[in-house]
């Protein structure tokens, strides 16, 4: 990526409303600016082996962005996050976070960021939820009054109010995860790094966290930045302004969810449910129409034809063809290519087809 101040011309308006129309992706202006980042680990005691976890990453994340890093286990997501949050040195490359060098000015970076990793690690089990939030805020020097106000707000927003005075070791895993998430916002950071924050969470809790995240970003639009790694396509699609697809330590594509779909195809996906045995040759012959797949007959005796339709005129021809031939159309739906389609096309395998532990 060319690290210059540039206008994000790919912005399509389908992302959350808080996203700014222009992004400063310059070395000093970006929330996160990474150039040539590489990180390798030595493993094995007798036979030394070098494992390259991150392999020459270039990325710039603008202030006010909700940026997703999507990749399978072992892709290098977590290693990248640890480097960005000053917990690991890079083997080579330059890393700037909030305008400061993450290697030489870690304290300046730490004052402005927080990290939430997935799981239920929420501090000391003997503390209450309220005490735990207070304790974490103190490590960032937050005055008691601000700490109280923030914790009360977070208790409400994240559904922790009823558990506020309960000891952490008596909380369920879901509540511990919510607390862990809340902890990351106690210092009112400029940039929040979320490493698989909804991993293992129930649907309702995950929805609540996502809603909070959108609200938090909107509160100070253009000033707050979130960098999110996730396994969940839907989560990345729903939340992120831009997504980087990472695999084997390399970033393979970076764009808005809409832009990424364009990489796969400009087609719209059309699914038509017809009676089994209906000839489909005529549809395949229409210019601008691709038959992607035809399902096997269902119990109802119908088949679903998945088409890629490139233009409106072709869609009209599809409908005309069906009407002329008097076919019974049980259902018809259209949608954009999914991120799953994008991921498979770029990486060459599905997100859940792992190649090893996460680096």
């Amino acid at each position, binding site marked *: 990526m060319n690290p210059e101040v540039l206008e994000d011309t790919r912005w399509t308006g389908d992302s959350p409303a808080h996203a700014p129309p222009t992004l400063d992706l310059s070395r000093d202006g970006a929330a996160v600016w990474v150039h040539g980042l590489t990180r390798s680990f030595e493993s094995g005691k007798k036979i030394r082996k070098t494992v390259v976890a991150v392999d020459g990453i270039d990325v710039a994340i603008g202030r006010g962005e909700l940026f997703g890093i999507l990749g399978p286990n072992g892709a290098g997501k977590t290693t990248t996050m640890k480097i960005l949050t000053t917990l690991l040195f890079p083997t080579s490359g330059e890393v700037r976070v909030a305008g400061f060098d993450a290697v030489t000015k870690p304290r300046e970076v730490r004052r402005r960021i927080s990290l939430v990793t997935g799981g239920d690690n929420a501090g000391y089990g003997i503390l209450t939820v309220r005490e735990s939030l207070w304790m974490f805020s103190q490590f960032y*020097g937050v005055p008691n009054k601000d700490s109280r106000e923030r914790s009360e707000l977070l208790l409400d927003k994240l559904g922790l109010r009823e558990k506020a005075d309960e000891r952490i070791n008596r909380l369920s895993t879901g509540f511990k995860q919510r607390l862990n998430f809340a902890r990351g916002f106690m210092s009112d950071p400029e940039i929040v790094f979320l490493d698989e924050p909804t991993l293992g969470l129930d649907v309702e809790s995950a929805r609540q966290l996502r809603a909070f995240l959108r609200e938090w970003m909107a509160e100070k639009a253009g000033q707050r930045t979130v960098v999110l790694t996730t396994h969940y396509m839907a989560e990345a699609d729903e939340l992120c302004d831009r997504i980087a697809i990472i695999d084997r330590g390399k970033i393979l594509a970076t764009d808005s969810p809409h832009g990424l779909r364009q990489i796969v195809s400009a087609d719209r996906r059309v699914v038509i449910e017809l009676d089994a045995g209906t000839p489909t040759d005529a549809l395949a012959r229409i210019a601008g129409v691709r038959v992607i797949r035809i399902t096997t007959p269902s119990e109802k005796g119908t088949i679903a034809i998945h088409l890629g339709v490139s233009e409106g005129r072709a869609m009209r021809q599809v409908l005309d063809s069906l009407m002329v031939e008097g076919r019974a159309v049980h259902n018809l739906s259209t949608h954009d290519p999914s991120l799953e389609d994008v991921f498979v096309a770029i990486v060459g395998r599905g997100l859940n087809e792992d190649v090893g532990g996460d680096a």
Partner: protein
Amino acid sequence: MTDGRFEPLVTNLRAAWARAYVRIFAASREPSWILTETLLPVIGMCAYVFVYRALGAPRAFEAFVVLGGVMMAYWLGVLWSMGTQFYWEKQDGNLEFYLMAPCSRMAILTGMAVGGVVMTSLRALSALALGLFVFRVPFDLAQGWTALAVFLLTLGSLYALGMCLASLFLMYGREVWHVAHALEEPVYLANGLYFPIRALGPWGFAAIATIPLAIGLDAMRQLLLGAAAAKPILPVATEIWILVGAFFVYLGVAVAMLRWTENQGKKRGTLILRHQ
């Protein structure tokens, strides 16, 4: 967040207090803690007192045991609650929180130390109360304030040593458990917790060069027992200077070791990965 040039200081003080809070207030919520921290530790001390009584030893020996029992509590605190603490924090996944925070690691260790001193003091007070009110050991409180100052100085040196151990143990991972055990019993002996350290001969002097426990204990014995403190190691004034020096040396070493350990961990990736 506080602005201005005092911001780092304020942040570190807040961090230290928050970490101390966990120990001082939260830890006392476990009822079993009262039993394990106050009643059980004094049992061993009683055994020594009864042995000395059975042998008809001078009463000052009982005072040695009581003072040793008090200081032993702090040594255990330094070893297990300071030295090994960062290692446990890493195992529990809390170390990452500390490494990510803008406060100093020394602030966190100071919080642990303050919390540890407060908590251990309950144990130490139970030993002292037993000595004063049950065994009626003959302490001379004429130089009580000086003895108190020496006691605080000894604690300062001990906990500074604990900070060094915290970095060391963090670096050596799982072996920490064995190292801490290895330092437990020999230190009781080498520091003469239950007997006059002169009995150890030249080895006694060697021991005092590394751990400030024996020096502090010897100074307090001289101040609280007077002439009864047979054959002190060094004059009290010299011992005070040694304690002051030990405090600064250990503190400096702790700061350097923490920085080194953190940098090594960031290079190797060992601080953020559990079980390494």
